[in-house]
């Protein structure tokens, strides 16, 4: 009964979101405001005007791409909590590469800078993957710790050796040449990076379903002993997935630099919490590539809409954090929800 299983796959995150929004509504009521007004303002802030929609997608792009990276590692049973560090590596190296490159015909400089950013993200993830495979050091911990290393190292780089001297007191790199910017889409503030949201999840889903490497990765994730017994080199599969995961996180960073800020600024990645939102998206979507991107756009909309809500009502922005936290809580108990749903689906359909 495939339809039932797909329905359950969508129903779990939907229920998580609904419960979280309901909890948010209760808090708004307790705080003395109208949840209808608050959520109305939130929806307007997220998608009410073309400009708001553009803002939502600008915010969502790095979230969804890091989410996709995390999801791919998840598929192989690997926990990449280092999306933030890999994104910083991609953003900084992408900015440095764009500045260092000689003037090249239009898309070439951009593509090279993007490649540099992806490579940087992948390299930042490579060490932890190797440590786990060779020495059994949990990647969960090493990737997480390397986030701090990346953030502080990048801060040092833009504070001392590569500081933009024209930028006054701000710790940032010089602006990258305009030729390397991601082109804008029409008259909006959107840049070409958003196209990735329409392309990457389908490529990822296709690769997981149709390629030998994707099949092997899924089997390693489902049961590593089974995969190894079947002749799959599980270590190679996990390292490969982690490299792709790091490269995607690096891509998110370099797309942010080339598309939005046009330079690396200290705190660019960490202050907005892009990578963590991406992580939530991947968990919420149970690592399905397409649903991860949908969830990433939803979280971006929630965050952008929250800003609008704060401007229009007296409800503080923290409500959005509460709703996000509640989503995680509900997802954490998803096993129970899922079991209950499958039982019902089984009861109806005769599983």
């Amino acid at each position, binding site marked *: *009964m495939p339809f039932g*299983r797909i329905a359950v796959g969508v129903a779990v995150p939907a229920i998580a979101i609904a419960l979280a929004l309901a909890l948010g509504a209760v808090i708004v009521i307790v705080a003395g405001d109208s949840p209808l007004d608050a959520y109305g303002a939130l929806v307007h802030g997220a998608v009410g005007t073309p400009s708001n929609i553009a803002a939502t997608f600008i915010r969502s792009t790095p979230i969804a791409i890091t989410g996709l990276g995390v999801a791919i590692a998840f598929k192989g049973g690997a926990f990449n909590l280092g999306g933030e560090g890999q994104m910083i590596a991609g953003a900084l190296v992408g900015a440095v590469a764009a500045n260092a490159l000689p003037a090249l015909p239009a898309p070439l400089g951009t593509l090279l800078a993007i490649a540099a950013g992806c490579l940087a993200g992948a390299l930042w993830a490579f060490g932890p993957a190797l440590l786990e495979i060779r020495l059994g050091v949990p990647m969960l911990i090493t990737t997480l710790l390397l986030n701090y290393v990346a953030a502080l190292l990048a801060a040092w780089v833009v504070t001392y050796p590569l500081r933009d001297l024209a930028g006054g007191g701000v710790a940032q790199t010089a602006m990258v040449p305009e030729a390397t910017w991601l082109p804008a889409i029409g008259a909006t503030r959107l840049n070409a990076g958003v196209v990735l949201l329409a392309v990457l999840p389908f490529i990822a889903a296709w690769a997981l379903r149709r390629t030998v490497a994707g099949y092997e990765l899924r089997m390693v994730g489902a*049961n590593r*002993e*089974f995969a190894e*017994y079947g002749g799959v080199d599980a270590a190679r599969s996990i390292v490969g997935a982690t490299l792709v995961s790091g490269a995607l996180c690096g891509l998110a960073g370099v797309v942010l630099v080339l598309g939005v800020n046009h330079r690396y600024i200290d705190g660019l990645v960490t202050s907005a919490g892009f990578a963590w939102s991406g992580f939530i998206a991947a968990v919420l979507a149970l690592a399905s590539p397409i649903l991860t991107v949908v969830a990433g756009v939803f979280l971006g909309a929630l965050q952008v809409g929250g800003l609008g809500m704060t401007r229009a009502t007296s409800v503080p922005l923290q409500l959005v954090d509460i709703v996000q936290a509640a989503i995680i809580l509900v997802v954490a108990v998803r096993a129970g929800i899922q079991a209950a749903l499958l039982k019902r689906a089984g*009861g109806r359909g005769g*599983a």
Partner: protein
Amino acid sequence: MPGSGAGRSPALPSAAGTADVAVPVVAMRGIVKRYGRLTAVDDVDLELAGSEIHGLVGENGAGKTTLMQVLAGVTLPDAGRISIDGREVAIGSVSAANTLGISMVHQHFMLVPSLTVAENLTLGQEPRNGFLVDRAAARRAVVDLADRFGLGVDPDARVRDLGVGALQRVEILRALFRGAAILILDEPTAILSPPEAEGLFRVLRELAAAGRTIVLVSHRLEEILASATRITVLRDGRVTARLRSAETNAAELARAMVGRDVALALDRPPTTTGRSVLTLDGVRAPGLHRIDLEVRAGEIVGVAGVAGNGQAELAEVVAGLLRPTAGTVRIDGRDVTNATTAERRAAGLAYIPDDRFRRGLAGDASVRDNLIMGRHAGKAGARRVLLDREGAARRVERLVASFRIRTADLGAPARTLSGGNAQRIVVARELADPHPLVVAAQPTRGIDVAASEFVRRALLDRRATGSGVLLISADLDEVRSLSDRIVVLHGGRIVSETPASQVDLVRLGLDMAGVAGGR
């Protein structure tokens, strides 16, 4: 063992059936239990007398466990009535069942590993000495009970240090300690070695002689025939036969279970053995000492032994999951001592691992994904970028049809299949192609009669078509009925090797027990 089931139990009505039992201890009438569209138990009547061991047999999915869960209060029936000693009762929970004296001994033990046996048994009902737990009294009570029924258990042993046989005795003791008059044992011998199982049946006979009612759920026909007085057979949720063990035999039981004749003894036509497909030369590994073994094309070499004497290690050394510290391993002539599993598969290895859900299958992956493993990149050993979808689809279709894997949806997780069907996936994947070497570890453990017969036939087919088979099984009957040669492992050493035609059971038993003989 067969034939010893009669004339042992106390006075019972003269004929089988239900009509002439005066007041049965348990009477279940018209029990129905549905799960969705599936009717697991369909209008079943069951009567249990005092002082009897009642055998409940059927294939996996026949409804025997569900029926017993209804009696034990684990599951609520959709229809039907239950009477205990002639009084109608409602059994709405496990504790309600316990109050009525009904207790189910579970497959997975529910004991506290860090506590002693005595502490586990008295947990929650500790004898008190004023304010303190009276440890001496608790210990005494346990020892008394254990002695009464010959359940040899050290009351001071920590549960975590006990083997499975002892754990099971503790579970039974605990049920008795709580005053159980009706004991349900669900597949109790699945995890026991033959001597442990023999000990269990002795205890069960003692209990029955002391007036308790025992329900023995099993699909091992020999043990049911040897220990039960009456037998109820279920198939597809319905009772297909009520028999007295003294008046029936394994063939009749198997027919009632499966609905057709089952060949319990398999045809093993002579073959001519060919080249060597597996050679172990002085192989040492953790758990193995200097193993020299050869399997030739066209023969089945059976490995017998008490669990834990190197069988698992032997299979893993051949499959490449355990690296030998010395010696060489050759598959079909190629030295694979240091080869990966993938390289061994390319050299001609097929492997049915002993634990299907740990290694043989990915439970959460689809039936389809499970069936193509190893061949997902085309021919074994090939390295392609894209999955061969058409080839995979054809292969899956062929395997499902020829190995009769029953599933409505190839995209469903393998975990949702019954044990026998799940094992068919493993067997289909490993035996569909003519690999020169087949290693089959416990290939029929925990699966029903029909599926076991199927798996054994598949192994014989491989033998007939020129594969060499290394069969490792705890089921001595299986080893004897399939093998051309039998080797016995004890303490990680091969202690004997005998052509099947010259096997002497007593000799085999002594070898398995590690009693040094004249070899």
